């Protein structure tokens, strides 16, 4: 597993994926802060008001797409030049290949989220927000199940763009389920809950428990599906 992870990390060298990861949080935060500053007289809930402005579109629509792009990127090299054949004949289990990709994707998303939170914190200080920093807004944990879902799609689908398109459609499905009160049963609505993008109220204990259980459950389920596929399916190289 460690060797697989090191190999995945090595593949990211000189990739400039960092630029792609950094652009979205920076632009989201800039637009959100400007909008907050222009409407400060009606946005009176301190840190949470700023959070609604910076995270609404980022957390609801674009973070899942960023996760999809990162996951597609993690599988990009394997889909080129028949590299899946090389990876699957290497002396490492298929499970290690999946989990190493998942861990690297999750770390890249964590980097994006850390940048976003650092910028949010800095913007809050600059705009002189009253009260303590709301730590519950750190929604990275909820990205883990989306990472597993997107990675499963990106491993199966050779195209870079198609899993990103699925992600956009899944965002809407997640939004629908969230509105219907079934948010804890779908990865993309779990992110809406985790990011507190639409509702800053704390979860009730049952939903909170489900939130913490469903994320790893989805990750394990999707990992199982993917690893089974890697073991049984023929690699499409054409």
């Amino acid at each position, binding site marked *: 597993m460690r060797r697989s992870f090191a190999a995945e990390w090595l593949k990211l060298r000189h990739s*400039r994926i960092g*630029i792609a990861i950094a*652009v979205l949080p920076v*632009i989201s935060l800039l637009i959100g802060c400007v909008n907050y500053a222009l409407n400060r007289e009606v946005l009176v809930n301190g840190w949470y008001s700023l959070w609604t402005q910076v995270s609404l*579109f980022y957390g609801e*629509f674009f973070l899942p*797409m960023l996760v999809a792009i990162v996951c597609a990127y993690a599988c*990009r090299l394997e889909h080129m030049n028949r590299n899946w054949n090389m990876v699957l004949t290497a002396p490492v289990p298929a499970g290690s290949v999946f989990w190493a990709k998942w861990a690297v994707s999750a770390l890249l998303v964590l980097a994006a989220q850390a940048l976003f939170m650092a910028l949010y914190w800095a913007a809050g200080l600059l705009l002189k927000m009253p009260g303590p920093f709301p730590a519950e807004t750190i929604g990275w944990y909820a990205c883990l199940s989306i990472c597993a879902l997107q990675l499963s799609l990106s491993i199966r689908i050779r195209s870079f763009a198609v899993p990103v398109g699925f992600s*956009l459609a899944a965002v809407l499905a997640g939004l629908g389920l969230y509105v219907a009160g079934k948010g804890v049963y779908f990865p993309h609505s779990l992110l809406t809950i985790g990011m507190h993008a639409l509702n800053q109220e704390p979860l009730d204990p049952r939903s909170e428990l489900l939130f913490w259980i469903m994320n790893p459950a989805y990750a394990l389920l999707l990992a199982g599906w993917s690893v089974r596929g890697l073991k049984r399916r023929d690699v499409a190289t054409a």
Partner: protein
Amino acid sequence: MRALKLEFYKIRRKKIVLMILLLLAAEMMWAFMSTSVSISRNPDHAVWASILFTTASLNGLFMPMMTAIIVSRLCDMEHKGSTWKLLGALDVSRGRLYAAKYGCAAVLLLLAVVLQAMLMTAFGFMQGFADKLPAEWLVRYIGGTLLVSLAAASVQQWISMTVRNQAFALCLGMLGSFVGLTGGLFPEAVRRWLIWAHYMDLSPVTIRYADHVATFVTQALPPDIAAFTAGTAAACFLFGGLHAARKEI
């Protein structure tokens, strides 16, 4: 024309149309649900303008991403299959190959926008909208949406063709969607320079708020924005084509 036909021949099993239908289904379901809720709250909104406005506002989110996906798929198949050298060795200029790919993307986008218009029409008849079907609005809607999408496609194709790594093209599409969705928050002077924010500007209908009441109003075609969008499409197509033609494979 033969180059364009061959582009369609190459994508016959790529299921690009299926992807377009999936994204369209998601967008139009959202538009229909949102309009239905709006009508149930205010029966005055049972007019063609409501569905046209809602769909145009959602286009800002969906169309840039759909455009990025279509163009990326058309270009990525050549990158992945290492077929640029084969294409370059044909007795067809690279400019024509570039134009054929752009033409293929344009036809697929036209298909998506026409399908949108047909779905909106069906929804309007099902809801029994009080006013007459505004054919002129539909034509303007199709033209405006297609124009903005073509401008976005020309930028996307430039990136997708010249940068092998499609992560950057998709990131640009994602940023386009972000700008399209949040375009209404930008000041007029900034928004006019952002092509992705023009879906609403070129829509035949907009909404005005007065005393907490929303009213749909017809808006004239803004010639400066339409000219800027068309100019961006032409310039990016031209420079992108020149760049791709001169770049070493």
